């Protein structure tokens, strides 16, 4: 089974702080990581590859520094990685991003001399948070999609996907090729070894720009290809003058909170 994992490098949102003066995000010094949901996509992909054979290739669109993130995927089982990077791709919303990725997927199939059976994405990227790129890649490529996957198994040349549902999960099957977006797995992603890290470090990461993606139409990329516009951003003010009860007997604290809730007409 040949697998493509779409991976985005994101700032570690655990480390993001808001500047109290300017009310903007402080991005300086915030480490970049592989989008956590994409580490799940990668892990389930590697397991399928180990079971069934084939190649696993990571694609990431972003700046030069995203090569680091690609390398960390190579260190945990990806065979090859490509960085998709060009000035013309900057400012893309999800429609343009997914278009560029879908064209890049076709170009990489050509270069690698294979066809992808499965395209894996994370449920969402933890910065943009839209969860739209996966389904949109599926639409551009006219493939079936299954979102919110909790696990993927192969069965008789098809895949069966556990899809999150309010009371448990749906087991959904589809023929390949298909696109799946992963929300969580029953196991943790593996760690690299020193050896696999060293090997990944040495590997060349080819960069694909528009010239390397022959079918791409530039008017559908970047701001030109993006119907949405970010008009403004701001950090939410948490005007919480929260009441914190410490050092009290449990009963007194509980009674006090219930009284406060009552007074605030919240019950």
């Amino acid at each position, binding site marked *: 089974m040949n697998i493509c994992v779409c991976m985005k490098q994101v700032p570690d*949102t655990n480390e*993001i702080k808001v500047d109290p003066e300017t009310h903007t995000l402080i991005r300086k010094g915030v480490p970049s990581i592989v989008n956590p*949901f994409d580490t799940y996509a990668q892990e389930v992909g590697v397991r399928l590859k180990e079971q069934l054979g084939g190649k696993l290739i990571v694609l990431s669109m972003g700046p030069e520094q995203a090569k680091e993130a690609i390398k960390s995927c190579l260190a945990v089982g990806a065979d090859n990685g490509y960085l998709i990077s060009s000035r013309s791709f900057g400012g893309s*919303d*999800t*429609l343009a991003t997914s278009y560029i990725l879908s064209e890049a997927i076709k170009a990489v199939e050509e270069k690698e001399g294979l066809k992808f059976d499965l395209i894996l994405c994370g449920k*969402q990227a*933890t*910065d*943009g*948070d*839209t*969860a*739209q*790129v*996966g*389904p*949109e890649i599926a*639409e551009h490529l006219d493939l*079936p*999609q*299954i*979102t*919110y996957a*909790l696990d993927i198994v192969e069965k008789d040349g098809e895949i*069966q996907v556990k899809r*999150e*549902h309010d*009371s*448990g*999960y*749906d*087991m*959904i*099957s*589809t023929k390949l090729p298909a696109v799946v977006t992963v929300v*969580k797995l029953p196991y943790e992603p593996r760690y690299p070894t020193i050896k696999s890290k060293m090997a990944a470090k040495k590997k060349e990461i080819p960069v694909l720009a528009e010239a390397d993606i022959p079918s791409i139409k530039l008017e559908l990329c970047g701001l030109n290809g993006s*119907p*949405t516009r*970010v*008009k*403004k951003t*701001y*950090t*939410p003010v*948490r005007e*919480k003058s*929260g*009441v*914190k*009860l410490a*050092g009290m007997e*449990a*009963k007194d*604290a*509980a009674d006090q*909170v*219930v009284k406060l*809730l009552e007074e605030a007409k*919240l019950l």
Partner: protein
Amino acid sequence: MGNLNDYKNIWVFIETECGKAKNVGYELINAARPLADQKGCPLVAVVIGKDIERVAKDAICYGADSAIIVDGPEYEYYTTDAFTKAMVTLVEKYKPETLMIGATNNGRDMGPRVSCRLKTGLTADCTGIDIDEETGNIAWTRPTFGGNLMAVIMCPEHRPQMGTVRPGVFKKGAYDEGRSGEIVKEEIHVASGEIRTTLVERVNEVAEAVNLEEAEIIVSGGRGVGSAENFKLLEDLAAELGATVGCSRAVVDAGWMPHAHQVGQSGKTVAPKLYFAIGISGAIQHLAGISGSDTVIAVNKDEDAPIFEVADYGIVGNLNEVVPALTAAFQARKA
């Protein structure tokens, strides 16, 4: 894209399963009502499903002016292919100016598929919807960076302007039995060969669907609860309050609760009136799921736990003592 002025009306998609509507559709009707009045345009409910005439009527009673329904056996359960085809066919025929979809799992599965086929813009998981005074476009407000940054997004030159909207953020309007409106039936059928996914089975891990998204009160427990058995304390409190039990991911990972109860970035996004966070530290991925809560009450033994930064009421203490005391205090209040 043809003439933008050809596109009129505000549409709200009403998601159904087995003929039953999700609340978020009705919430969106209430949210869209003032926008439609301001624009002086009709507000149309779009219902796709099986045996859904009742749902269309209800949508009108909740404030829609009219409804379009697509009814058929192929829509009993959600599939990407059937619902996308039906919705795209409707949009191409009627040209709505705005299309709102509840940001449920299915809504966020269908939304991008539809917007991509129509080559228009889609704003994700919105928590605010306004009209931009200058341009008359919809200004969609949405949280990004795990809730650390709010963004206002517009779609100036493409129609329809589409958004998925977070459940529970807007409240349902009053049900007015006397309201009436036209219900238009559209026959759109999808051959089974066009639907490329198959529902093999539905596995219920919990006796009843956990409806966290629509719950008014949630009692959530974290790793601090200590064991599956100890969740009994939270269940007692929840029973007293008529609340739904939720949990953090650490609890799901430990196998104490099924994933259907999980709140947060890789679980449910909730918007209750009261949210109890008990033995939950307040990691950003958890907070991302609870930012729509009106009031947060935290119980944690660690005075410096980040959950206290977002809590309206906090008790620093051992949950094994505080939770039963809370249950007793609520009980006493009723007596």
